[in-house]
């Protein structure tokens, strides 16, 4: 018999995240004949609202109401899940900050195989589930086989599975709260500190000159700023630039930074990690300039140029200034 499939639902303020619908689609890729069950942990009216909203896309919705789970502390939720999950099941979890916190330890505690950050699920072959992952910062993909005979915990990359249209499964909400009882952990949530606003709001700009590791040093940020000034654009960046303290966190585009919706996005010396791409919305025109022809950014950009940004950008800036000078007459 095929293993039972569960999807862990991440939600906020009474609303399931987009990953809830994506995992429903992912579950069908694992086994179209085994309807998936949503697992939702939380507390109060918000939890009830989330459970209700999932009934269309899941065959069953397991509700775990517990005041200790009002904030999703992965250490507590892991302990709750271990108490309710049947042996040998397959658990799908979104690969974001919560899933990364929860899933590896959950696989140990349920004695299940673990595969993370899955881009595509190709289906079951014998005892194995065949999936696609990415390695080397997106420069190479890999087919991976996972032995699911004793169950599996699989984290799925947000956005990788397209949600199904018009599902109406009408799944029942099943209250599993009593099976969990009290949970406690050696890690306690204190509070969430909201990111500081910063000097420039990159979410408000139609054109972004975005720089990555290829800018090489702090002094070179000025090269990007010159171009941005000439274009009437703002300078944004990818994670390595913030890690190196060359620009403030408020300038970072990505899942752990800002979500931007420009018309034109100039990706300069940016490799194109998925966490960065996750912050670019609204289908902008993406122009990528990178000296590595294998950079993943070229797979998603509209136009690509293989060149050294430290030489290319100043020449581009001069040309823009020249044009502006002409058009001003």
């Amino acid at each position, binding site marked *: 018999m095929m293993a039972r499939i569960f999807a862990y639902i991440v939600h906020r303020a009474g609303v399931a995240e987009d990953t809830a619908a994506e995992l429903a689609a992912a579950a069908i890729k694992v086994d179209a004949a085994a309807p998936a069950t949503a697992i939702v942990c939380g507390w109060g009216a918000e939890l009830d609202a989330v459970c209700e909203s999932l009934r269309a896309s899941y065959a069953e919705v397991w509700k775990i109401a517990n005041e200790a789970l009002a904030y999703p502390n992965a250490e507590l939720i892991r302990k709750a899940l271990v108490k309710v999950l049947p042996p040998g099941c397959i658990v799908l979890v979104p690969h974001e900050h919560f899933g990364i916190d929860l899933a590896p330890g959950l696989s*140990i505690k349920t004695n299940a195989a673990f595969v993370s950050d899955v881009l595509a699920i190709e289906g079951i072959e014998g005892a194995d589930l065949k999936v696609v992952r990415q390695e080397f910062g997106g420069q190479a993909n890999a087919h991976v086989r*996972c032995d699911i005979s*004793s169950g599996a915990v699989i984290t799925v990359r947000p956005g990788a599975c397209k949600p199904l249209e018009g599902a109406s499964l009408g799944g029942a909400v099943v209250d599993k709260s009593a099976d969990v009882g009290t949970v406690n952990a050696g890690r306690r949530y204190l*509070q969430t500190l909201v990111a500081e606003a910063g000097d420039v709001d990159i979410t408000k700009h139609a054109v972004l000159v975005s720089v990555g590791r290829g800018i090489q040093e702090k002094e070179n940020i000025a090269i990007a700023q010159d171009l941005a000034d000439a274009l009437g654009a703002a300078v944004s960046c990818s994670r390595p630039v913030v890690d190196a303290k060359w620009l403030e966190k408020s300038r*970072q585009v990505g899942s752990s930074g800002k979500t931007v919706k420009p*018309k034109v996005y100039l990706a300069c010396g940016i*490799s194109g990690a998925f966490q960065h791409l996750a912050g670019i919305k609204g289908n902008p*025109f993406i122009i990528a300039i990178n000296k590595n022809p294998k950079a993943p950014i070229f797979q998603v950009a509209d136009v690509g140029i293989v060149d050294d940004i430290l030489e290319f950008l100043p020449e581009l800036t001069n040309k823009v200034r020249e044009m502006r000078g002409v058009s001003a007459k």
Partner: protein
Amino acid sequence: MEILVCARRVPDTSENEIALNSAGNDIERDELVYSINEPDNYAVEEALQIAARAGGNVTVVTVGGEDDEEILRREMAMGANHGVLITDGAFAGSDGRGIATILKAFVQKGNYDLILTGVQAEDGAAQVGGMLAAMLDYPFASLVNAIEVLDGKKLKISREIEGGNKEMNEIDLPCVLSIQTGINEPRYVGMRGIRAVASVPIPTYGAVELGVAAGTVGEAAAKVKRVDYFVPTLGRGAEMLEGDREENIEKLLQLVAAKGGLK
């Protein structure tokens, strides 16, 4: 505070163009530049800073082969007190769970208050820290971007969550934390520093010394196996401008203007 950092030597993706070998079962490794996995280097720096504030020792451990000694020496040149190489033919082909099993055996031979890993390595799996914690029944937190030692028994930590927000937690020791890049500014390591530790002996441990049963690690125990590599095709692919620089700039500006980006 006794701190253990689990580190790994990886092909540096920022320095390499990754190409597949002709068989498609591996990447072309001959010309690759290797370095310490970047988040692991931040983890070592964080360990050194904690030890400087709260006292204690920093040990860096890696599971690998002889070639991996170079990252241990590099981190010792940064200031780590000890480097340890865990190596055994029986460990080859281990999946994440296998690596965590090996590290667990090593941890239990010592007396560590705090265990750090980088958030992820070149395979992007972000798995070993959380697995190790669960095996040890230690609390775990991932994506940690600030650590404050409250007393000898607990830490206050910040996790990087969506939108640049920070999730603040208190966590009991001993615990395992996976460290996010940007948590600190790792110190520079010069050739002189590396030469100074060049002759420091690095102890090695194998399956027998660690008491790891052969059937629990290595390729035979791995439930997760890579079948092959292939070239990704995420999107439709960019239209590549292949003129000279001046032509490319002309064309780029036409496109930017057409998209309303030159007003």
